[in-house]
């Protein structure tokens, strides 16, 4: 019969073991998903590159139009903050990092006396700002791990309308986590709208543009329908990077949790073994003590183990009369 303390420890080890199984499973799931998310980010690149390429071609042909998305406000009085967070937690500091950065941006805008619009993406960021009574202009959720282009288009449409509306935002920034590698991700604050001028966008692309394109219906019309696509594709790639970062963070957090659980199991097992050994020792002592008492009752010389305990267990000469390990008596060389 295990003792009370041993039972408690055994139960704790069991529960830690279960937790470890769960965190291990989550780690493996996140590990496979992060590979997929990276793949999706890579697959989305050609579209973004082509869109940029077309803008470069347009720029080379000298088309520079006055489009609402390009218009720089002379004085900024309202800013939009778009936060890209996750739907679920258990991803280490992923959510809190991006939320804290966004909150700092809001504080900075407030300090400058600007009003702001807050757009949250992901359940966690919405919950955070809602709980703290920040006015949330729009929120999107349910796709943080696996963003679709439709979701990006929806968000882009909302953000564009915030920007172009009368009395709307004069500047919109995007706060998200950039995926650098499996081992490192960083929170970045990017200016999202207004877009830079066409020629600036063109300069940032690396492909060389060639003049002499024919446009149908006209360069301006092409640009007109191209810029919203460009905004969507930029937002989509940010969403994909955020998803990959979220999963990488979750994998790391769950790996740490699994390791911690293992460490705890080892520690608790040691403790349990010690407690068990203590109990066994106590039990033996009790049995011996009881037997001793019985022997004393019979008033016989103690022929029991206990009576020999304080004597030399391996006597050099006479081993007779001793019940303890007589065979192990070291033979005298003489």
């Amino acid at each position, binding site marked *: 019969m295990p003792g009370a303390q041993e039972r408690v420890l055994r139960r704790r080890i069991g529960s830690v073991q279960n937790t470890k199984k769960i965190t291990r499973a989550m780690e493996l799931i996140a590990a496979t998903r992060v590979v997929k998310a990276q793949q*999706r980010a890579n697959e989305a690149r*050609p*579209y973004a590159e082509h869109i940029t390429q077309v803008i470069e071609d347009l720029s080379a042909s000298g088309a520079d139009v006055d489009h609402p998305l390009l218009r720089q406000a002379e004085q900024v009085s309202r800013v939009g903050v778009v936060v890209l967070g996750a739907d679920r937690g258990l991803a280490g500091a992923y959510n809190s990092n991006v939320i804290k950065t966004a909150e700092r941006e809001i504080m900075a805008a407030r300090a400058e006396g600007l009003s702001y619009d807050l757009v949250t993406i992901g359940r966690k960021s919405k919950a955070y700002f809602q709980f703290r009574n920040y006015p949330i202009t729009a929120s999107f959720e349910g796709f943080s791990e696996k963003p679709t*282009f439709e979701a990006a288009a929806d968000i882009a449409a909302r953000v564009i309308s915030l920007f172009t509306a009368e009395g709307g935002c004069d500047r919109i920034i995007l706060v998200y986590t950039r995926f650098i590698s499996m081992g490192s991700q960083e929170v970045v604050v990017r200016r999202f709208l207004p877009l830079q001028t066409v020629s600036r966008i063109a300069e940032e692309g690396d492909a060389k543009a060639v003049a002499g394109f024919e446009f149908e*219906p006209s360069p301006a019309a092409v640009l007109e329908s191209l810029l919203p696509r460009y905004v969507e594709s930029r937002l989509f790639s940010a969403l994909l990077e955020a998803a990959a970062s979220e999963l990488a963070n979750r994998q790391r957090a769950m790996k740490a949790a699994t390791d911690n659980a293992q460490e705890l199991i080892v520690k608790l097992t040691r403790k349990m073994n010690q407690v068990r050994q203590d109990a066994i020792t106590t039990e033996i002592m009790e049995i011996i003590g009881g037997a001793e008492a019985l022997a004393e009752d019979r008033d016989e010389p103690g022929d029991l183990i206990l009576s020999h305990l304080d004597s030399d267990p391996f006597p050099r000469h006479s081993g007779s009369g001793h019940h303890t390990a007589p065979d192990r008596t070291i033979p005298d060389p003489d």
Partner: protein
Amino acid sequence: MSLLVELVSPERVAYTGEAKMVICRTTTGDIAFLPGHIPFIGVLSTHPVRVQQDDGEVVIAVHQGFVEVSPPGEDGRTRVTILSDVAELADTIDVERARSAKAEAEERLRTGPGDPEAFSALRRAEVRLSAVDAA
């Protein structure tokens, strides 16, 4: 010499292949590209794009987007890139779904005429179906 055709959607490169001729409809009218076409950028309207190959034709349902004909690369081939939010190859289109989407959109237009979303849904379904028919 042939055309190099690439169909790029935001999520991935949906199709790459060679072609003799590419026929598509821009907002101002139909246009066909042959190898050696001058660089061109056009806004596509919602209409199937037909890619003619030596051994048949590939039809792609395109819901708006752009077509870009790049100047010949180092290998001297003309590249045609179709950029579209929604681009589907005709043989991957679910005909049943497109039909039911069309019926639903028509129903919505009957009850609430002028619903732009229903109208574009109808248009998309029609393009999908016409792409399947053309293939």
